[in-house]
């Protein structure tokens, strides 16, 4: 976005926010801007971007920690840890192409953007979310004060955990300036057990058996036949369970897992290269990329066994394209950008006892819709009080998550 303030360092962020605080002038907070289309549109005359705050400030592979300024491209961090055979644990998705933003094409996503939205990929089901691995943050609150929480050690219960509070807060509480993540060795080999042609209910039952097996399944997804499309190695609907480990263990575990899943069909085992490409596609929701570029996109999170019912309900309500990750618990949905479709998604998520997030829609729908669930009154009061505790004048990304917050 042109015209955005792009401070060169944390002190610059603090000064810019302090100035906005004094003036009571709202700021749109962003990194590269690839996720500006998430949730509700922000009403702010000015934008502040962390994209100039770049660089890895600490990387200690043998201590499993990496620190970087918030505007560092995620790809740069992924490359740095890959050089030491390590990986970002939560496997964050690259939704740029799906969200269709120009910024995403040119700049990619930043570390700060990924943490601020707490977006995690397929490995989330076994190894935790982005927020689970945020060990430390530095940030500037809505008064322009520099804060820090956590640190660079793997365990820490000293004081309130602002790392978790700020992760997933979409820039509404503070501007994150630097982040320390736990990283882990990247398993050298990957394999996938696939069952072809199951219904969603059968598929999720198979995934429950896989995740309930002793073989350490690190991802579990169900792609209906409509979502399989051009993905290599798949034909009919695909029920997928991934093993990541050393090569000999991947061979052993995929074999044993396939035996376990014989009750559900005739399992096949996909090789390393096919598996990696396939899970990258699941991670980035590639099955929803084709088709109408104006379609709305949702992520619904429910208990895994409720995933098929959510898919069925939205399919009954509109021309939905969907697939399931996280053992069935994460329902990715694309459909018409209409209030009726959104209402159907909300109803399905509520019936499943879970939550939803509107990822992409025209501004009109984004502004009118409850893009994430409203909280019960007691929590809504606390949400507003915590917002005021960090951003008393409501100048940071106002309205991004809830009206008036």
């Amino acid at each position, binding site marked *: 976005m042109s015209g955005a303030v792009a401070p060169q360092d944390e002190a610059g962020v603090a000064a810019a926010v302090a100035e906005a605080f004094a003036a009571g002038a709202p700021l749109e907070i962003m990194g590269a801007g690839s996720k500006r289309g998430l949730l509700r549109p922000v009403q702010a005359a000015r934008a502040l971007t962390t994209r100039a705050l770049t660089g890895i400030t600490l990387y200690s592979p043998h201590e499993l920690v990496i620190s970087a300024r918030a505007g560092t491209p995620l790809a740069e961090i992924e490359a740095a840890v890959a050089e030491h055979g390590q990986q970002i644990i939560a496997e964050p998705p690259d939704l740029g192409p799906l969200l269709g933003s120009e910024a995403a094409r040119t700049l990619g996503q930043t570390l700060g953007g990924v943490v601020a939205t707490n977006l995690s990929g397929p490995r989330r089901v076994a190894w*935790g979310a982005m927020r689970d691995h945020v060990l430390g943050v530095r940030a500037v609150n809505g008064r322009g004060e520099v804060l820090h929480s956590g640190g660079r050690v793997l365990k820490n219960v000293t004081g309130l955990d602002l790392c978790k*509070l700020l992760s997933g807060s979409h820039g509404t509480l503070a501007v994150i300036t630097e982040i320390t993540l736990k990283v882990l060795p990247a398993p050298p080999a990957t394999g996938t057990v696939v069952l072809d042609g199951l219904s969603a209910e059968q598929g999720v039952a198979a995934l429950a058996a896989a995740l309930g097996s002793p073989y350490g399944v690190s991802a579990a997804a169900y792609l209906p036949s409509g979502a399989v499309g051009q993905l290599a190695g798949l034909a009919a609907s695909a029920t997928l369970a991934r093993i990541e480990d050393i090569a000999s263990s991947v061979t052993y575990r995929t074999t044993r897992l396939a035996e376990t899943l014989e009750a559900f069909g005739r399992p096949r085992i996909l090789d390393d290269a096919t598996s990696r490409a396939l899970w990258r596609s699941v991670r980035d929701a590639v099955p929803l990329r084709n088709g109408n570029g104006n379609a709305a996109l949702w992520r619904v999170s429910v*208990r895994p066994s409720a995933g098929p019912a959510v898919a069925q309900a939205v399919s009954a309500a509109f021309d939905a394209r969907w697939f399931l990750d996280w053992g069935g618990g994460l329902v990715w949905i694309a459909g018409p950008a209409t209030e009726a479709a959104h209402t159907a998604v909300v109803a399905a998520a509520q019936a499943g006892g879970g939550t939803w997030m509107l990822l992409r829609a025209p501004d009109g729908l984004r502004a009118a819709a409850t893009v994430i669930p409203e909280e019960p009154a007691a929590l809504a009061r606390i949400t507003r009080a915590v917002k005021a505790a960090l951003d008393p004048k409501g100048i940071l990304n106002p309205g991004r998550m809830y009206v008036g917050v």
Partner: protein
Amino acid sequence: MIQQPEPKRDVLARRESIVAGLRALLPETGVIADALRLKPYETDGLPAYRQLPLADAVVLGLMRMNQILDIDYADRCATVQAGVTNIGISQAVQERGFFYAPDPSSQLACMIGGNVAMNSGGAHCLRYGVTANNLLGLKIVTVEGEIVEIGGAHLDAAGYDWLGLITGSEGQLVLVTEVTVRILRAAEGARAMLAAFRSNEVAGACVDAIISSGIIPVALEFMDRPAIHACEAFAHAGYPLDAEAMLIIEVEGSVAEQDALLDRLREICARHDPISMKVSSSPEESAAIWKGRKGAFGAIGRISPDYLCMDGVIPTSRLPDVLRRIGEMSEEYGLKVANIFHAGDGNLHPLIMFDANDPDSFARAERFGADVLKLCVEVGGCLTGEHGVGVEKRDLMPVQFSPTDLDQQRRIKEAFDPQWLLNPSKVFPLTSPPALAHAA
């Protein structure tokens, strides 16, 4: 020295009405009927300073809320009341091969509500994470008395991460009455090995080498000479009494996978001039190895009348320096110390031995402990990894946090608890800026 004040008379007089109020809030069985028997809320099962009611606080006991409410194997979660013990969850699901991952040494006694309050870890959190990483939902009671459910059986909140903020908040924000945890299927098997070394430094270097090799054992525990001797006398686990330092390393998988991993670990250890290495050959032997480690606090209790258990965390690369400094402090203060810790994640548990009947000994122990924690912060670590700040460490908070940080945390506390009624006088230093010193 920490003072334990007498409750105020007017509060004592109000006990009956307080119990009546609680009865309205909680199920019948959650309230101890006899007002005179109001007992401490169990936090982490630790013997020292288990509960310290301060000033005019009333202690709310949740230990009778001890029901397991739901176990769902298909969705891999369990919902339990706050007073269920940590091990009680694993025991309830073990017949199906499942377990609840965080396993603090106190797991026989500590309750899940306390684990949530302290974000407890344990020996296996290098692989499986701490409490916060294993929670799906909470039922909470706000200070206004509202009962609210957070999360559920699904992953990730859409709004602010209350689950993450409340976990580890030491009862400062809300009361937790029910917890939905993830349950995991256990690996096919697990086996431990012991490796004994000639110095703390060499053992520390071996820890580095293991992590750098790309192997993340499910547990990687360190004990120094005093700890080895105390624990061996207690558990008869075959610990090497001639060693200065010892590692317990555990791996999981099929027998063949265990063999392959243990072979690689033995090679790494062999490069560090070990005195001895021993791989457990049976489940009984593995159990004995863990009995020694998990019984460490009790074992120290057998050789010293009293001890302070510290809980600092350091970057693992600073291990040799920090252990050397702790050794020097031990000389300076004239108090023995045994070091036991989770080496993979740098969580130190130095046990400082003293005699509570000797006020000078106690005072030295407290100063020694504070110096250890300051050292942890100085080398880039923190004051507490899993035991919490409580009263003991509240005045050290400014060592780790700036005044702005502490003010911000206090404002967040106030968003939940405007009158500072929940766990008053804990976590935050009493010497606070006047405008925010509500608790003092």
